[in-house]
């Protein structure tokens, strides 16, 4: 058996500055040192916080190196010194940091990769808004864009992600008490990023991110071939993220279905795909073109994917797409009455339930129509 020499990465994730990520990382470092491990601080940003600095005092620290960029001298983490020192565990703050030009890598997470490759375990910190995929959403939520981002895969590759969570009110109290920023920055922070609605939204994003991370890890757990207990554990229900597939057609009623599907996806914390199975010979009328264009725009605004597949066999195509996309729910509107020989066919919902026994099929009621039919 060849033992992997790559170090373990544990990331302390938070919704914003000041939640206590660095502090938690240092506490963890102290616990490891107390347990007899060789622990060093590779890079620490105290941001002038006394409690943090006091806690860091008792751990050995690798001094920063000075890097000359144009006419300025900048301080950066000393990657070669860390690799030469080769501790068992290294604490490296602010994973999303962008390095000054002229050092080994452009980004700190790339430095961390080298440290892990050297077999050194790493503790690091990250704010949720630095994740690339969440950046746009967070701009929309908070109106603030952070420039330093990291690919989501970096967090995905972490062995453990620890969420450091405080309530927005507690964080604001901490900010007002001067525990996050120096006094001259408090008012500006309160008026800009640190608004209760921003923090609420960011907290939700952070909690969701960690939940999804856990779900993804469970899904990618390698196949178990061992004892009966291990096999049973592998068969245990997976905490799967929901993925909804709404079947649309180019007519105005489809938009209502899309909106309901989107609301359901929001409630379930899932993703939404839209599918139109287009008969190969079908030519769209002007109205249908407009309806399709409206559905496409709606999908785009909602962040859903519109898929168009050409086929005469609707059920088989829906089943194939559902398998491919990992769909857990199918939503469809009430079918229009069949005509001619089509009346002899098995209804689409029934066909789908037979083809996809693990997928829920939901027929969305047309409440507006029902309301219209009521006296």
């Amino acid at each position: 058996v060849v033992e992997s020499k790559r170090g373990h990465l544990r990331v302390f994730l938070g919704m914003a500055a000041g939640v206590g990520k660095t502090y938690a990382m240092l506490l963890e470092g102290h616990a490891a040192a107390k347990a007899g491990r060789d622990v060093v601080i590779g890079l620490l940003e105290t941001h002038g916080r006394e409690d943090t600095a006091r806690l860091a005092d008792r751990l050995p620290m690798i001094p920063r190196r000075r890097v000359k960029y144009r006419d300025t001298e900048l301080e950066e983490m000393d990657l070669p010194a860390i690799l030469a020192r080769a501790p068992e565990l290294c604490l490296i703050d602010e994973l999303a940091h962008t390095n000054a030009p002229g050092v080994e890598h452009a980004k700190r997470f790339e430095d961390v990769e080298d440290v892990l490759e050297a077999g050194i375990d790493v503790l690091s910190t990250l704010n949720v808004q630095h994740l690339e995929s969440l950046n746009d959403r967070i701009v929309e939520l908070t109106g603030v864009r952070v420039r330093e981002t990291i690919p989501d895969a970096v967090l995905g590759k972490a062995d453990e992600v620890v969420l450091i969570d405080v309530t927005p009110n507690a964080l604001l109290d901490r900010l007002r008490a001067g525990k996050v920023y120096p006094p001259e920055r408090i008012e500006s922070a309160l008026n800009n990023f640190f608004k209760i609605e921003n923090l609420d939204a960011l907290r939700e994003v952070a909690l969701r991110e960690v939940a999804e991370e856990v779900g993804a890890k469970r899904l990618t757990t390698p196949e178990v071939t061992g004892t009966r207990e291990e096999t049973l554990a592998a068969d245990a229900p997976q905490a799967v993220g929901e993925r909804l597939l709404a079947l649309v057609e180019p007519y105005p009623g489809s938009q209502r279905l899309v909106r309901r599907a989107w609301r359901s996806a929001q409630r379930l914390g899932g993703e939404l795909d839209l599918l139109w199975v287009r008969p190969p010979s079908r030519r769209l009328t002007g109205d249908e073109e407009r309806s399709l264009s409206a559905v496409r725009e709606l999908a785009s605004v909602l962040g859903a994917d519109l898929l168009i597949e050409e086929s005469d066999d609707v059920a088989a195509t829906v089943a194939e797409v559902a398998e491919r996309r990992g769909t857990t729910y199918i939503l469809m509107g009430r079918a229009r009455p069949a005509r001619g020989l089509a009346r002899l066919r098995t209804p689409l919902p029934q066909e789908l339930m037979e083809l996809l026994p693990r997928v829920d099929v939901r027929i969305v009621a047309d409440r507006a129509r029902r309301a219209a039919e009521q006296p």
Partner: protein
Amino acid sequence: MSTGVVVAIVLAAVLVGIAAGYWLPPHGRRVRRERPRPVRRILLPFTGEAISRRAFEASVRLAKAEGATVMPAFLARVPMDLPPDAALPVQCEKGMPLLEAIEQRLSAQGIAVDSRVARGRSYRDALRHLLEQEHFDRIIVSVPEDSRSGLTHDDLLWLIDRVPAEIMLLRPARDDTRRISAVGVGGHF
């Protein structure tokens, strides 16, 4: 009667049955094809979480009188930091329930509805995109009480100047501040 004739009669009866099954609608009623008539499209744009009852009722009256389709349109603003085609889930959290409420109320009164969503760097930009893509016969705009929110007075002037459609600008009534909002959504939307 020879066997061949009998077979031919049976086959003919079967073919007639299939043809009738194809052409007749499921409940045996023959649908009368309506004469094509000019479809009138009434645009009802909105930006916030509610629209004035006055604008809504005007669209209902006109749609009933003219047999028109009402097209409620949610206008979303894309922050400059985001790409122009960015998803806007936060704004949709407010806009979609209102769109649903408007659709439900219109449908309940037997009015044809065909909703739209448009986005742009500003509400005017979103409206411009929509007007470039589609034709509308009438546009009903609820003039906001507060010109800093929604379509501004400049936007309304722009609309009157540039858009070749009948435009109704409705001021909020002093004695009637009722609004249609997402609270009115029926069901579990």
